[in-house]
């Protein structure tokens, strides 16, 4: 069968196994935020009343360009969804290769003409790319819908499309940066994400304890022998999502990572990926 067809089928399989993590949660968040926005606007209008509304906007307060409420709203949604997606992805990867061994369904999957490489690739891409990507789309959708709700609700105060236009411009700017962060995070987070996937494929039980325990053991050994913990510190840094690792401040400009560090992260990620494929091939039974 076509490699792409098989990969898409494997992605679909993951969505059947983890519907809550992969699509129900982001869809639910979109709906929740839109509902909250509608409720806020409705209640606000009801409370203040459209005729007796005395709130006076300062023209600067109403700046919907860079640095204004539009950027704040976009950053809030994109950053919060991003952070959530990273936690969801780690949780997904921790069980991705463990559960199929625990319930012995790996014997069924291995009885099909799908290679260990394809299976591990699908799960790695799901954790590194697909889940964060879906949550990013959900964040953008949330921001757009909330913008529409706010614009509609505020038209009596601000006739015209000033709010909508302003929020849209801010959203596009922040969204562009979010896409850049999303792409860089794939490389930045690869060592840790693929470490978690490796543990999921090899642990005989309690994968979370192994995933955290071994790095902590490395920390203890490094501190004891070398008085510094370079390896642990490096992994710890890469365990921190990019926006919180000091690599990106939406107010300060574009996100970036050091080129050499990026290559190192990618290389380690590839090694861990290879080990995971090898592990699934040879050490799949609990």
């Amino acid at each position, binding site marked *: 069968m076509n490699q792409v067809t098989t990969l898409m089928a494997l992605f679909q399989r993951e969505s*059947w196994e983890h519907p809550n993590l992969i699509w129900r949660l982001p869809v639910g968040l979109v709906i929740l935020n839109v509902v909250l926005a509608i409720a806020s606007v409705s209640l606000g209008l009801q409370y203040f009343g459209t005729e007796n509304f005395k709130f006076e906007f300062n023209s600067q307060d109403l700046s919907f360009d860079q640095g204004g409420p539009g950027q704040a709203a976009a950053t809030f949604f994109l950053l919060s969804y991003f952070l959530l997606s990273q936690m969801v992805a780690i949780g997904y990867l921790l069980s991705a290769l463990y559960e199929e061994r625990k319930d*012995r369904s790996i014997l069924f999957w291995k*009885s099909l003409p799908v290679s260990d490489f394809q299976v591990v690739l699908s799960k790695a891409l799901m954790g590194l790319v697909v889940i964060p990507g879906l949550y990013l789309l959900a964040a953008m959708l949330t921001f757009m819908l909330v913008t529409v709700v706010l614009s509609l609700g505020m038209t009596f105060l601000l006739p015209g499309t000033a709010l909508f236009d302003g929020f849209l411009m801010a959203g596009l700017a922040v969204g562009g940066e979010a896409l850049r962060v999303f792409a860089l995070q794939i490389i930045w987070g690869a060592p840790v994400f693929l470490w978690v996937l490796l543990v999921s494929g090899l642990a005989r039980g309690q994968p979370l304890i192994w995933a955290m325990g071994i790095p902590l053991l490395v920390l203890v050994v490094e501190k004891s022998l070398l008085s510094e913990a370079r390896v642990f510190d490096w992994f710890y840094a890469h365990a921190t999502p990019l926006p919180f690792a000091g690599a990106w401040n939406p107010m300060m400009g574009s996100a970036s990572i050091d080129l050499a560090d990026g290559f190192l992260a990618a290389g380690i990620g590839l090694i861990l990926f290879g080990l995971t494929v090898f592990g699934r091939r040879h050490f799949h039974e609990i």
Partner: protein
Amino acid sequence: MSNAISVQSLSKRFGDHQALDRVSFEVPKGAVVGLIGPNGAGKTTALKAILGLSAFEGTVEVLGKSPRSAPHQMMTSVGYISDVGILPRWLKVNDALKFTQAIHPQFDLEKAHAILAKTDIPLKQRVKALSKGMVTQLHLALVLAMDVQLLILDEPTLGLDIVYRSQFYQQILNEFLSEDRTLLISTHQVEEIESLLTHLIFIDQGKIRLDAALDDVYSRYRAVDVVKSQMSAARGLKPLSEQAQIEGACMIFDGVSAESLAELGTTRRVGIAELFVAMMTRETKSTASI
């Protein structure tokens, strides 16, 4: 390639335990082979080595391919059903069909639907909501629709009631068995597969005890209901086993002429189950005496 499976000097060790000890056998194409042995004999270990699911020493060839090199490619022509319960519990029946169709080049969705239509399995149901028997039916429907050349079954009817077991083998007979298709089945329930088998392999403590075509087994081994008056004479022919009966005993003989046996009592075709028990019991006694 006249053999579907060729196993040479297959060995597997788990720590101190030698699960398989230089086992060699062949499964001819078109054969229906029963791999029979007690618990811990090495049946599942042998099947997993054949499927490339575990490391092993020795040489294994399946449909001309080595399971070491690219087992997933081999699985386009090989179907495998382990004991009940390896289908993922979260998987819906429809999704199982959809997924298999997407990744298996020979999967016939219409055939799968036709097979499932004869069962009570709802297509929108998840595996966890199905009974054990239904799970096995679903798995079998998937495998039969894959149009494989070799089907390997490892205790496929474990835990199923007699109705499901009967339906299972009937389906295999109707939908799978043909001249060019091969079946290797490991089971304890020897009696219900005896009518399907063309070849027999007994395995015990990691070693092959018997490897023969069923016709050869029937001509070599005979069961005799020995009358009381002939008991001494019968024992003189060194039977494999002796089971006391109200009048005399039932004995199984290896390689004794029909004429000699006819004098002892009523001869009949030996059952695989009783032959298996006789051989395993004899091995146990030999080991104990050593």
